[in-house]
Structure formats: C-alpha cells, structure tokens
C-alpha cells in the first residue's frame, strides 16, 4: 500500500504531532487555556489554516475569500443536523462535499487570473456570499439571527429511530454525545487525519507540481503541463478543508452566522498561515494557535491583572506601565495582533518556522542551510 507509506521523517513528524494534539489538555493547563471551548478552537482553526496553506503555501495563490467556504461548511452542517440527524458524520461529509462544489465553482472562475487579481476575485466572491447570506438568502441562512437548531426541526433519521426528546439535542457520534472534552477529542482526531492528508499532499508528485506552479508558472506550462487543473484542485482541496473546519465549528456549537464569512475572517486565516510560516507543515498550526490564544487570553486581561504583573516596578512608573500595557490587551488585543503581523512580515517573512530554523542553524552546524527564498510567499504571476 503506497497510501500509508511515508518517509521516516514524515512519520516522525506525524507521530510527534499526534502526541502533541492528544496531550493538549495537559500542556495547555499551565498557560490557562485548558478549557474545551478554546482547545476546540485551537484544533478547528488549525485545520482551516492547514487547508489554506495547501493553496497559498504550495501554489502561491493568495485567496482573500476563504472564510466563505468555512461559512458554507457551517451552514451545510447545521442544515444536516436540522433535516437528517444529529450524528456528526453525515454533517461533516455533506459540509465537505458542498463546500468543495462551491470552491470548484469559485475557483474555476477565479483561477483564470493570478496575482492580485486572483486575490480581488476571491475577495469579491466571498463578499457577495456574505452580503447575500445577510440579506436575500435569509430563508436559508436565517440572516442576522444566525442559523440554529429549533425544537420543531424535522430530523428525519433521528426521529425514525427514537421519539423526540425534551430540549434541544446535542451533536453525537454513533449515539455518544460530543460535548466538552469529548468534542475536543473528536476534533483532535479529525485534525490528525487532516494533517496526515496534508503530509501526503506535500510529499506527493502533485505537491511538487504545485510548488512548480509557485516558483515559475510560465516554465511549468512550457514543459507541457496545463497548470490550471492542478491549481484548481489545490483550491478545491483547501476549500474542502475550510468546509470541514466550518462543520466542526457547527459540531461544537450548532450555530452558523454570516459573520463567519466576512472578509476579516478571511484575513485572519491568511494571518495565521503567515505568522506560523507559509509553505511549512507545522507553521499554520502554530499560527492558528497563537492567534486564537491571543484572542481568548489577551482579550480577557484587565488592569488588575496587569497591575499585579507590573508589581516589581517602582511606583511612579508602575501606573504608566499599566496604562500603556492596557492599550495592548483586553479591548486592544487586535492592536497587538496588527503590530505582531507587521513585525513578522517585515523581519521574518517565513514566519515563526523560519525563526526556529534560524535559531536552529545557529546551534547545529550540520544542518543544511535553507535558501532564503524557499519558504517565502511568491505570488503566482
């Protein structure tokens, strides 16, 4: 079976990755992030970022509208819950299929252009989806109030097997309810599978082809390849990843709102990928974790916590320090995020993974030097 064959290095990476993911409740405890809601977000947005990286990292096409696929995945999953069953597997399958089809349609049109035009096209499609979801598509999306479960949902399959219970049902897997840690472990297993698929894509001839498109599309087409179908396949795959992430968001909280499709959400996944390291396997995951961690922990900081933090500073300085620092946490965490973003793009275009490599090469002489442009984002022009 070639399907499960991989180089020893990849196998080690996968094993280490699985170990890190499954022990997440342990290592998030000291940094105050070990509650299921946040860990689920860590895992789900890691999937989103891995998928985005398959497109941006490998082909260099910068999509500014990926949140649309996430939103479509969420809506599909919630509709499956409402119409068929609360079991998560059909919801996930349908979400991946529908967002894949959606990505195929948008990708088919957008891939006709490259560079900044491609970015603008994806942005335009995503904004159209968002605006329509908010206005005329209200019968499907429930507009501003968000799509959610109700007591009158038909749920054909569930109700054929068991009578309607009291209260709103929760998502389940073969009868096991997925709440709290159970939900986290389910998402974690999905993430490991998604990561495995990403490893296979990166190592496959298809992945090499995509890298060829990124480094020089013209040369690729001169050698006789029609590059567009390959790039389009990458687009659809990353759209399916986004749909999967959207479905998992709906699994952990059966609610789908249009704001998930807004372009700021698309910008966020770009940010995660860049921050971690474009074109690397682990980078987007780290980027996603950092951003979600900032969002949840830093935005909960307030002046009392800061005041305790700066206790060691003498009094007259103390208050100024607190006042300055308070601008960067709590309500102002986005300021930190923006600054971090600018700093990373200016000084470390390869993201955190490049930083790790640089530090690594300081210590180990034997490590092969990486060519500076290898992990850089090159637009396909």
């Amino acid at each position: 079976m070639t399907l499960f064959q991989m180089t020893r290095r990849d196998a080690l990476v996968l094993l280490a990755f699985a170990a890190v993911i499954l022990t997440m409740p342990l290592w998030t405890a000291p940094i105050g992030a070990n509650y299921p809601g946040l860990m689920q977000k860590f895992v789900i947005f890691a999937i989103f970022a891995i998928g985005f990286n398959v497109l941006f990292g490998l082909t260099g096409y910068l999509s500014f509208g990926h949140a649309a696929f996430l939103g479509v995945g969420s809506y599909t999953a919630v509709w499956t819950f409402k119409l068929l069953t609360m079991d998560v597997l059909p919801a996930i399958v349908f979400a991946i299929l529908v967002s894949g089809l959606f990505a195929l349609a948008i990708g088919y049109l957008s891939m006709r252009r490259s560079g900044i035009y491609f970015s603008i096209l994806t942005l335009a499609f995503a904004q159209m989806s968002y605006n329509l979801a908010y206005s005329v598509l209200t019968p499907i999306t429930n507009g501003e109030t968000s799509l959610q479960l109700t007591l009158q949902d038909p749920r054909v399959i569930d109700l054929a097997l068991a009578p309607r219970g009291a209260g709103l049902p929760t998502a389940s897997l073969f009868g096991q309810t997925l709440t709290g840690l159970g939900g986290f472990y389910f998402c974690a297993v999905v993430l490991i599978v998604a990561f495995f698929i990403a490893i296979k894509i990166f190592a496959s001839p298809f992945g090499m082809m995509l890298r060829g498109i990124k480094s020089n599309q013209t040369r690729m087409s001169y050698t006789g390849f029609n590059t567009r179908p390959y790039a389009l396949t990458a687009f659809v795959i990353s759209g399916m990843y986004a749909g999967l992430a959207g479905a998992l968001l709906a699994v952990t909280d059966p609610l789908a709102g249009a704001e998930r499709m807004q372009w700021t959400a698309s910008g966020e996944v770009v940010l995660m990928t860049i921050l971690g390291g474009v074109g690397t396997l682990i980078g987007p995951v780290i980027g996603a974790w950092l951003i979600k961690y900032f969002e949840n922990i830093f935005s909960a900081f307030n002046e009392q916590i800061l005041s305790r933090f700066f206790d060691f500073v003498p009094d007259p300085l103390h208050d100024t320090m607190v006042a300055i620092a308070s601008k960067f946490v709590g309500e102002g965490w986005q300021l930190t995020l923006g600054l971090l973003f600018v700093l990373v793009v200016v000084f470390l275009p390869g993201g955190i993974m490049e930083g790790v490599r640089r530090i690594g090469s300081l210590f180990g002489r034997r490590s092969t030097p990486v060519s500076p442009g290898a992990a850089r984002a090159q637009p396909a022009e």
Partner: protein
Amino acid sequence: MDAILAQLLNGLDKGGAYALIALGLTLVFGTLGVVNFAHGALFMLGAFCAVTFRYIITLENVVIDPDNLTAWGTPAEIRTPLAQTWFGDWGAVLIDWSVPLSLLLAIPVMLVIGIVMERGLIKHFYKRPHAEQILVTFGLAIVLQEIVKAIFGPNPISQAMPQALRGAADVGVLIGMAQGAVTYPVWRLVYFLFSLGVIAAVFAFLRFTTFGMVVRAGMADRETVGLLGINIDRRFTIMFGLAAVVAGVAGVMYTPLLPPNYHQGMDFLVLSFVVVVVGGMGSLPGAVAAGFLLGILQSFASMNEIKSILPGIDQIIIYLTAVVILLVRPRGLLGRRGVMES
C-alpha cells in the same frame, strides 16, 4: 425620468468618495508599485482629523459663577468656547464651519503621515512580492484603526455640517423641470463638486507642473529618470504623501454624510480596490471613471423597481461588476495594455 435623474445624483457623492480613494490607491500603485491595503485607513484618519479639529475648536472655558444659581440651587457653570473668547462672533462661525475648516488641519497632518508611512515602512517593500505588500499594509491598517479606536472610542462621532449648507437644493429647476421634481441635499452636491475639484487639481498638478512631469516620466520609466540624475525616490515619496492627502480630505468632507467610526477605512478599502481594478490598475482616469460609475450603479441597484426583479442585487452589484470586468477585460476599463494583465 425624475427617478432616474434622482438616482444618478444619489450615486455621485458616493462615487466621488470612491473616486478620490481609488485615485490615491492608483497613484501609489503607479508610482511606487505598491499595493497599499492601508489606504482606507488614511481615509479614516482624515475623517478623524475633522473630529479632532472640532474637538479643539469647541474646547470650553468653564467658569463657576457663585451669584448665578441654577434651578437646583447650585452655582451655574458658564461655558464659553475658547474660540468665542478669542474671535468674538467669528468664533461661532468657525465652529459652524468646522468641517470644511478641518481641511486646513488635515492637509499638513495627512502629508506628514503619508511621508512617515512611506519612509518608515513602505519603502522596504518595493522589491518584495505583491502578496507581502498586501500583508504588511493590511497589518498596518489594523494597527492604525486600533489606535484610533483606543483614542476616540468605538462609537461613531457625528459631525454637523455648516448651517448654510443644510437642506436640499432644487436641482430639477436648473435644467428646466418642475419645481420640487428633483431635490438633492446641498452637502452631497458640495461633496460631489469638491471631489471634482480635487481630481482636477491632482490631474493639473501632474500635467502642468515640472514636478508632475518628472513624476509621470518616472511612472513610465523609473530607471531612465534616475539615470538622468533626478532623485525620483524623493518625488515618489511626496506623491505617496499627496495620495494620503487626497484620501484624507475625502474623509474629512465625508464626515457629515457618515459619522466617522474606526472601521470605516476597511469598509471603503475593499470597495476602492474593486474600483481600482475595474478602472484598470495604474490608470488614473480609469480610477476616477470607475469610481463614479460604481457609485451610480450602486444607487441604481438600490431602486425598488430593480430590487423587485433581481432581489439582493443592491448588495452585490459592485462585486459582481468587478468579477465580470476581471474575467472579461482584466486590464480594466481604461487600463494600459500589458499592465498587470494576466
């Protein structure tokens, strides 16, 4: 006929704002070759120049008068705006006209902001790929809007327009229609004329001054101009400052129409990029034409007659136009052949 004329007029002021922002974006792209996602933030900063100016001009001197009691028996506070103390009756006039007067503050401030931004950050990104330019300016836009949010708070701050320019103008009469057939708010008309004036000024500057001639030469062939011993980089820096000023004054004058809030830059930015692409990357007349065209299209799409045929069209018309233009004619309406055409 009346309805069509009314919608045409409605599109003009919004189109003016789009055109001004897109003009600046195109200037920056044409001169420096940089895709500036922070340009919308400059529009927003301009709007907040107006807020600041109004804040300064309405600073009050509070005197507690112990002889004069209020209805609750406490000493009355007599508030006199400092402007009134200094300028007498002119003070009230100054406050009334604060929005147009803030242009005086906005122009130097935006010029400095633009030049600092270019020298401090953008200049390091000339040689980097477009994707990285987009990313760094996107980050900068977040930083700018968060700073404004930290200073001015998250709520929109409405700005009053001058007393004399409130109310509606009877535009229909001018072209021989019945009285009251087509009326139009005066300030929107002012905004439209203002945007035309700024656009004309920018074009005249590029066309008729030596500086503008050098800049145009640099846009066509930067290297040769540099070889002639001209410091083209410095001129391009000034052009970046000028683009910031154009975005800033567009923001200042727009404040009575839309109370400034910290995220309006992002809202306008996405639209302006669409405008630039529709007009043609790097084409100044294209940006202006597309700005007005899209403003007018948007106002037509929000007519009830059209919405009843195509529900939701008003929400997506701009993006739809962009998609169609990009797929059918990627160089945009007036773009040069071969510029970013792929």
